[in-house]
């Protein structure tokens, strides 16, 4: 009995001495609760981030591309190209700015067309929604009604960004041409007030290929004139120069 007590006292002394060097474990249930809370916070942050609730990331987990057609504006002063920005997140995002990177061209204007919801699209009834915005500058618009910025894009909707440009050169360099960066946030006074710039570079507006011969192969660009006729062009700059001449 005495030996057991002494043994226990010895153990306690040892534990006390060790306590001064490294903290004693808090017990399995308390440790489990604290650890589960830490992991739970990480899971919550992950779910919120994936859903696009913490900062705008509408294209996460998806690919976006550009349209293959160019279109001459009604006033014959610019040519338009389109780039797709789908909102796959669970929160509406607002497109506040668009920058265009296309060598040999100057940006004239930008606009956004909010495509119809997927259900309507599958029924074959396209709905063109014009955004009510606070634009102060009158913008050139094509017949689909591209709205000026800023534009709210609800979840599961796709925005088609229309970029009007005017060529400053008429010779196309071989390779990819034309990328669009979209600056987005959650809207005025929305929380959190983070903005994000997405480079829609997965598919440039045009891939200039001097050896392209066939429209069926998808190698050449199609340009739609004001009168509704289509012409094949070898590159965006050459085509735009020809159409605006």
């Amino acid at each position: 009995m005495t030996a057991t007590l002494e043994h226990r006292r010895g153990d306690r002394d040892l534990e006390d001495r060790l306590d001064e060097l490294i903290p004693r474990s808090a017990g399995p249930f308390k440790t489990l609760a604290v650890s589960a809370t830490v992991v739970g916070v990480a899971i919550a942050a992950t779910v919120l981030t994936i859903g696009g609730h913490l900062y705008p990331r509408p294209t996460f987990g998806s690919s976006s591309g550009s349209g293959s057609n160019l279109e001459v504006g009604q006033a014959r002063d610019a040519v338009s190209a389109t780039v797709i920005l789908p909102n796959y997140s669970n929160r509406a995002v607002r497109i506040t700015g668009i920058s265009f990177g296309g060598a040999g061209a100057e940006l004239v204007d930008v606009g956004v067309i909010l495509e119809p919801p997927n259900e309507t699209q599958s029924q074959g009834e396209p709905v063109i929604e014009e955004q009510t915005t606070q634009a102060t500058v009158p913008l050139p618009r094509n017949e689909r009604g591209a709205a000026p910025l800023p534009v709210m894009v609800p979840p599961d909707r796709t925005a088609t960004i229309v970029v009007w440009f005017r060529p400053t050169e008429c010779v196309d360099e071989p390779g990819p041409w034309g990328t669009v960066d979209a600056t987005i946030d959650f809207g005025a006074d929305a929380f959190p007030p983070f903005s994000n710039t997405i480079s829609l570079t997965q598919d440039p507006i045009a891939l200039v290929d001097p050896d392209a011969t066939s429209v069926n192969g998808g190698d050449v660009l199609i340009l739609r004139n004001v009168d509704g006729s289509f012409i094949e062009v070898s590159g965006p700059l050459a085509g735009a120069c020809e159409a605006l001449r």
Partner: protein
Amino acid sequence: MMHRLMNAVRRHRARLTVVAFFGILFPFLVVAPQGEGSRITAAVLLSLAAVCVLLVLAVNLSGRDPDAETRALDVAPDPLAAALFARWLRRSKHFRFVGGLSGATLGVAFAESNLTPVLVGLLAGIAVGGAMAEVHFFGQRHTSPRSAEITLRRLSDYVTRTDTAALITIAVAAFAMIAIAVADRSDQPKPLWSALAALAAVLATTGMQWAVVVRRRPALSVDLRRADDLMRRLAATQGFTRPAIAFALVMVSQSLATFANSTTITIAVIALWILALAWYVASRQSRRNLRALIDS
């Protein structure tokens, strides 16, 4: 009863993981194709798998490590050192597990089509968890009269030369990457941010090493002081330094990968990943690693 169950789960976690794996796989591959009638079998198997996963997870999160004593006795020079080791092994392993799990989970949020963010998150989480295990502000009790040891302790007495050389090399490489990224004025932020992350990891690791080495120590008996020295040595190497080196190496490789697309760069990136894996393996609490560190 509960402690016995937890210990049993901890000891048989590998078998339980295998059961969980097949419990998840079997319903999809074998049972489901057989039609409606097999739904109950599939549900039972999936439930079994879920129970296994939750049990293993719960036991790991509760910090139970019944093997810690055995591993400590294997490598410790005396019972006192073994008792101290067992505490450190349990604490460090638990913190690293929670950190790694949280980091990998956060990495999923950024893993669009590749696993790199998950692995980066895992390594960063393990390093942060290992470092947090060395923060003793909470839960430390003082029963004996306050005393302090005033022996001079140097970083080189606790950190291995290989780890120090790796940290210096990574810092130099990260500086070079930052300089190139700034001079390049590229639109891509990834090289700069990855290099900055590598540099931050090196600085934080060095700071944490100092914190561990100079952490106050009461006046102790010779045997306990020796055990404490060994524990600090383990903490400043395996605990957080090696996972941090692995993380920093991956960050350097990420920075390098975006600079240029050439065969040399590709080989360098692969080499950095292999080195990172080696450092991570060296940070694990295996008997071999512990023995190697104690003998060195």
